């Protein structure tokens, strides 16, 4: 049977300060100027699959509905095509706001488990962090085994054809100065002197 859900939000659902916090991040400031025209939702090639349209996400962030935004699949459906960003009449960098929300959703563990997109983002980063380069074959294989093990077999055909055309390899690519890259990343983790890097 269909479950009944409350569709109207309560004041108590808000997390006061969330919107202001997001709007203080460089690149996200202009969210305050949103006029709710819906151009972003109209040009977004993926809005038809979203639970909240981009326009709604903008409104929800501004009104502090943190949980609704961070657990929404909208932020993960954004493919970073930047159509909304260039079309927005208020010059709001919607794609960058989506990135900011993705980061927060990962940090705070809000995304649906086994949902492949955030898992891909994290596996991707781990590989870059450790090796400096992406080996696409390895990355995709890992992703499928982690999120859709049953479908991995169905992808074998594609893998074989790619291998035949010389486009698939499980070999891990590496940069030479991996130690340098690790030191750069470590330095980015250290607290900044005189600022949090997000002024």
């Amino acid at each position, binding site marked *: 049977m269909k479950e009944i859900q409350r569709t109207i939000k309560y004041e108590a659902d808000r997390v006061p300060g969330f919107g202001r916090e997001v709007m203080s991040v460089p690149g996200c400031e202009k969210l305050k100027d949103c006029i709710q025209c819906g151009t972003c939702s109209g040009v977004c090639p993926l809005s038809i*699959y979203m639970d909240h349209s981009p326009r709604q996400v903008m409104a929800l962030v501004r009104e502090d509905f943190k949980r609704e935004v961070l657990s929404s699949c909208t932020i993960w459906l954004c493919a*970073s095509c930047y*159509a909304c960003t260039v079309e927005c009449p208020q010059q709001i960098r919607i794609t960058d706001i989506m990135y900011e929300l993705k980061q927060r959703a990962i940090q705070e563990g809000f995304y649906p488990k086994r949902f492949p997109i955030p898992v891909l983002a994290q596996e991707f980063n781990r590989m870059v962090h450790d090796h400096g380069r992406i080996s*696409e074959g390895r990355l995709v294989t890992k992703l499928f085994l982690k999120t859709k093990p049953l479908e991995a077999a169905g992808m074998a055909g594609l893998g074989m054809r790619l291998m035949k*055309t010389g*486009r698939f390899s499980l070999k891990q*690519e590496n940069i030479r100065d991996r130690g340098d*890259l690790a030191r750069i990343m470590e330095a980015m983790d250290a607290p*900044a002197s005189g600022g949090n*890097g997000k002024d």
Partner: protein
Amino acid sequence: MKYGYFPGCSLKGTGRAYEESLLPVLRHLGVELVELEDWNCCGATAYMAVDEGKACALAARNLALAERGGFQQLMAPCSACYLVLNKTQHYLDESPAMRRKVEGALGTVSLKLSRQTPVRHPLDVLLHDVGVEAIRQKVTRPLSGLRVAPYYGCQVVRPYATFDDQANPTSMDQLLKALGAEVVDWPLKTKCCGGSLTGTLPVAGLRLAYLLLKEAKKRGADAIATVCPLCQFNLDAYHDKIAARWEPVRLPTVYFTQLMGLAFGMPAHTLGLQRGFVPLELPAPTAA
């Protein structure tokens, strides 16, 4: 003409046909590319989704390597690399605190960012540095009768590119015409191909690839020309799945550099054309 060359991970993997065609074509036009020593992954769309600061530092290491190598300009053929490297420069310019932090981190390994290194796409270089006329002069086997839909995708024209129009880019159109091809007018030039969603969420991602193929076919295209390894992959590798879900829309998708090579008289196998799933068929040369 000499440029630092940032291939990116895809041009060494699934998109290697792009590199295989780009290098000889540019050499033929007198453009010298020198691969950036020890370059690392640009971070693409995934790193920015996890950690903004590290994403910046990752891309900035490449810019610093270009500076250390003495390159005045850097060429990035992959759309994601092109966007991320440009985006990082914009971001560091706009956020002094982030710049201080990134410069400090690069300093721990004696790298520095003291100047801007323009990051350019091959389309930009071919059109504005080499010039359409010089390209036309190299054509020995015009692509007459081949109807091509020029597909720019998203991240080459949005939001940082200044070399072409964001809504209706025409640089590849001009290039293809110079090769003798017939350019198909279609409205989806800059629509998203589905990006990495074709793998992670096929129901949504593949639909976008399907719509592009369907429209190009409807408009009478024999092939789609692309500038990005992910676009090429999405439009070439999933025909079986697309046919099973919607309808067959088989159409070859090739790199614009492969078409240039063919028009310059280079053999198909030296341009990586054997790596595509849907083979490109050229119309028989018409008798003069």
